[in-house]
């Protein structure tokens, strides 16, 4: 049940036919894990917080540095040196005290990932590297938790939504390891991509619209184009394929 205060706070989105009071209550009952409190994690967390998600768990082992501030809008100059999850929690709490914000300052590994996302209804990918994305992808499939992928570089970004057991996963196109490099980026790119990821999460939790499943959306900020590509589930995928394929 929504409180009178919540009904007033969320009035404009409750007015959206597809959300309504019932959808708002679904958001309130939802628990979201956001892996990464950086460039993507910032807009994702902000928009999910103001939308009225019940609980948001931010996971990030890092501390705020000056070079983060061109894009990681949850963190301010006064936060330099502070744990990102502490900085994020302080801002998000001031945005919406109805939302429970958890912060876990740990590195995501194969051995702790299951525990880190335990009890969450969705996992949002806001990572800055591909190996950790694969760790999250495998965990999401094993625990049957929807996984919302996003990534950026420069003015370009991509988004895909993964429903374990039903749709293509992040690993379905895997060809081998990729080099880890410092990536260029300007803040407006994760702002766009993270906002789309947050939109996908809201749609999924409320149960409306058409998700970006089996569809890779690529955003090109320089040309201002959105291109869509079909990704087919790979039966031989070592994460989501058949047990034979996993061999």
């Amino acid at each position, binding site marked *: 049940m929504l409180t009178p205060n919540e009904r007033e706070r969320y009035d404009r989105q409750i007015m959206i036919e597809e959300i309504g009071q019932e959808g708002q209550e679904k958001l309130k009952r939802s628990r979201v894990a956001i892996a990464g409190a950086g460039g993507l994690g910032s807009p994702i967390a902000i928009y999910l917080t103001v939308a009225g998600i019940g609980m948001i768990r931010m996971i990030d082992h890092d501390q705020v540095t000056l070079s983060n501030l061109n894009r990681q809008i949850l963190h301010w100059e006064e936060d330099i040196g502070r744990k990102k999850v502490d900085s994020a929690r302080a801002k998000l709490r001031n945005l919406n005290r109805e939302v429970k914000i958890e912060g876990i300052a740990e590195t995501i590994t194969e051995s702790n990932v299951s525990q880190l996302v335990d009890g969450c209804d969705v996992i949002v990918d806001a990572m800055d590297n591909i190996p950790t994305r694969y760790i999250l992808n495998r965990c999401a499939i094993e625990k049957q938790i929807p996984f919302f992928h996003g*990534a950026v570089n420069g003015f370009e970004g991509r988004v895909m939504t993964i429903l374990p057991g039903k749709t293509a996963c992040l690993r379905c196109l895997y*060809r081998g390891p990729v080099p880890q490099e410092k990536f260029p980026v300007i803040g407006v790119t994760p702002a766009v991509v993270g906002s789309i990821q947050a939109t996908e999460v809201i749609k999924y939790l409320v149960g409306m619209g058409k998700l970006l499943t089996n569809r890779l959306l690529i955003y090109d900020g320089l040309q201002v184009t959105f291109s869509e590509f079909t990704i087919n589930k790979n039966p031989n995928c070592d994460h989501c394929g058949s047990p034979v394929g996993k061999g």
Partner: protein
Amino acid sequence: MAVKVHIHTTHRQFTNGSEVVEVKGNTVGECLNQLIKEFPGMEKALFAKKDKLHNIVEVYLSHVSAYPDELVKPVKDGDEIHLVVMLAGG
């Protein structure tokens, strides 16, 4: 078969800035070979070794992933190939 190849932003330095290059071929591999013939710099951008694409390069044929065995996929007149690069940042 006449096919349009869409070049990724980071590769346009090798195509004199061209965003789209028209090539001819019967398979994705033949089309990429012709692209490389015209723009030799694309070879290192796309391939780790002969017939082995870099792990970060994704190939889409008429907006559908051509993975796996991208290079042997047949193409038809009017098809489009998008060369895309996997992104890692967040």
